[in-house]
């Protein structure tokens, strides 16, 4: 077998690739990871062989009968994280959740200097995985959490993962049927996984990557498989930091609006006219008020009509007439109020008071022309008071603006929340109403 002679003369000779033949079927074997390889699968007869044995002892004969084509063919080279890697091994792992099997694929990448790493794929979601040598701190009280490098990872799922398919070579022993207890903790875009066999625990850290990045790195033809559903550590389109910023912006806007409203309230609005009248039935003659002055800039004029209508209505036609220019703002208002008791319940409809704001009235001397009216069969008189105030804040508009300001941050929160529901639906902690098992 190949491999350079270490030390001695010619120590600078290159480490040579190994050429082997399968003892089971005679097919030529490719060994890509030099002396690191411990197990190698014969591509022809699918037997797992001991690469460290001079005779390539068969570890598992005909490990599998089906054939699976890895999405990244064995032997493909690509540039990943700044250096060349070759895909040397492929493994399919399967877990069972409520009787349903879920499988993901693992691609073992090799570089003779930097070593080994994985790319894993499930339903179009890819992860770049490396082994972690530090020991994460685990908190098991409540929902388990693992901490590593100052980051907290929340427990997502615990399952028994078995190897259901192998191809290529591995720097450790593999067999179809090998199984390990797998615990996943997430801190999107990262996933921290612990795999345990016979009391030995190995931690690995995965980072979510897009299929397009994998395809580009390895020069694969066509497009990567479309990602379906939300994966455990898939980054949210509405990450927490963005939600907070949106809310901060919202609160800033609210602060501005509230300050503006307070300023308007403090300014007050001047009362420029107030007069009370009595309107008798059949007494609806139009009249004009005494002139009054509207000062300041062109702003609104609020007209308040306070009446004592009782189970009836009164109608008023108003014209706010500018003495100098002869221009008038003309409009009509109705005031109606009805009440009664029906089936023991009191009801009422309408209002005795009406407020209306006349827009953009230039300053000047004005009078009000009033043309009141009562129903033809009105029995009683109606007392009413007309009050005019200059430059009254439109409070409804403030409210509408506050509501409209809340829409974008609420949309952000809503989208984020629905993404997180989809994420946790696949975990050991599905949100209420989404089914799944309750461990």
């Amino acid at each position, binding site marked *: *077998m190949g*491999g350079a002679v270490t030390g001695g003369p010619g120590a600078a000779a290159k480490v040579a690739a190994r050429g082997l033949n399968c003892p089971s079927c005679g097919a030529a074997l490719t060994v890509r990871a030099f*002396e690191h390889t411990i197990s190698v699968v014969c591509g022809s007869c699918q037997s797992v062989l001991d690469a460290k044995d001079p005779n390539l002892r068969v570890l598992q004969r005909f490990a599998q009968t089906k054939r699976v084509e890895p999405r990244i063919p064995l032997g493909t080279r690509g540039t990943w994280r700044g250096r060349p890697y070759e895909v040397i091994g492929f493994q399919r792992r399967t877990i069972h959740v409520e009787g349903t099997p879920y499988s993901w694929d693992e691609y073992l990448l090799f570089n*003779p200097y930097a070593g080994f790493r994985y790319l894993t794929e499930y339903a179009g979601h890819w992860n770049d995985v490396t082994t972690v*040598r*530090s020991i994460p701190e685990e908190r098991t009280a409540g929902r388990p959490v693992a901490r590593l490098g100052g980051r907290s990872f929340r427990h997502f799922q615990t399952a028994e993962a078995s190897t259901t398919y192998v191809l290529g070579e591995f720097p450790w022993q593999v067999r179809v049927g090998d199984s390990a207890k797998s615990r996943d903790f997430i801190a999107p875009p990262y996933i921290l996984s612990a795999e345990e066999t016979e009391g030995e625990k190995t931690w690995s850290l995965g980072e979510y990557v897009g299929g397009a990045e994998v395809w580009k790195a390895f020069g694969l033809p066509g497009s990567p498989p479309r990602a379906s559903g939300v994966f455990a550590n898939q980054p949210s389109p509405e990450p927490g930091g963005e939600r907070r910023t949106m809310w901060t912006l919202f609160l800033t806007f609210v602060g501005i609006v509230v300050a503006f409203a307070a300023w308007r309230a403090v300014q007050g609005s001047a009362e420029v006219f107030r007069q009370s009248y009595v309107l008798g039935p059949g007494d609806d003659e139009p009249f004009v008020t005494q002139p009054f002055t509207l000062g300041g800039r062109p702003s609104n004029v609020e007209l308040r009509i306070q009446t004592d209508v009782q189970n009836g209505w009164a109608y008023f036609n108003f014209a706010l007439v500018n003495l100098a220019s002869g221009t008038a703002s003309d409009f009509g208002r109705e005031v109606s109020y009805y009440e009664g008791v029906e089936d023991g319940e009191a009801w009422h409809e309408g209002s005795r008071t009406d407020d209306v704001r006349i827009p953009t009235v230039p300053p000047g001397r004005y009078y009000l022309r009033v043309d009141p009216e009562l129903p033809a069969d009105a029995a009683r008189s109606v007392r009413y008071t007309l009050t005019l105030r200059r430059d009254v804040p439109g409070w409804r508009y403030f409210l509408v603006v506050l509501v409209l300001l809340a829409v974008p941050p609420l949309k952000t929160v809503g989208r984020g929340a629905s993404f997180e529901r989809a994420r946790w639906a696949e975990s050991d902690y599905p949100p209420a109403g989404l089914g799944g098992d309750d461990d």
Partner: protein
Amino acid sequence: MTRRAANCPNCGARIEFLWSAAVQTTCAYCRSVLVRHDVDLERVGRVGDLPPDASPIQIGTEGRYRDRSFLVVGRILYEYERGGWNEWHVVMSDGASGWVSDAQLDYAVSFLVPAPPPLPNVAEVKPGYRLQFKGATYEVTVVTPARYRGVEGELPFEYWDKSEVFFADLRTRGAEFATIDYSEPTPLFFAGESVGYDDLGLRNVREFEGWGAR
């Protein structure tokens, strides 16, 4: 820097020392294990053919760890149930002796700790055992019965012809790494940290067929 030189007492080949304080070395030609006594070299044994391995590090590799540069001058090769690993003996620019371990391309740098904390004995040590060292809590992750497969080059002590040795690896919450070597009557404690290949800035490394340099 002039290197000290001597002749192999067995085959006469010229031995040039990369490190002035080397205690033991091997002759590249006849594979004799030679121990230095001042000027003379004593042949104490022979090391068998080392199994082929694919570590990119070789004797003569240069690198950098933190604030010091180093030169690889020797190694000890072990084998265990999962495969093999190398303990490369490196000499730092200040003359100190250190170790770069390469286990399936997983690298760590460590140094012998002359005054270690109280260490468990071979019977006591098991995964989960904890000890405190320099403010960090170290936990035993794996206890490995290993077979010594051979030595090469210059070592800071006499080390040859061992059979089965026990090692305990310890890790912390951070990147720290330690190992307890039970091959001597008194356990030896080495402490350091896990490093990535790029962290060592290695030059003069081996080349691999089908792969460009580095």
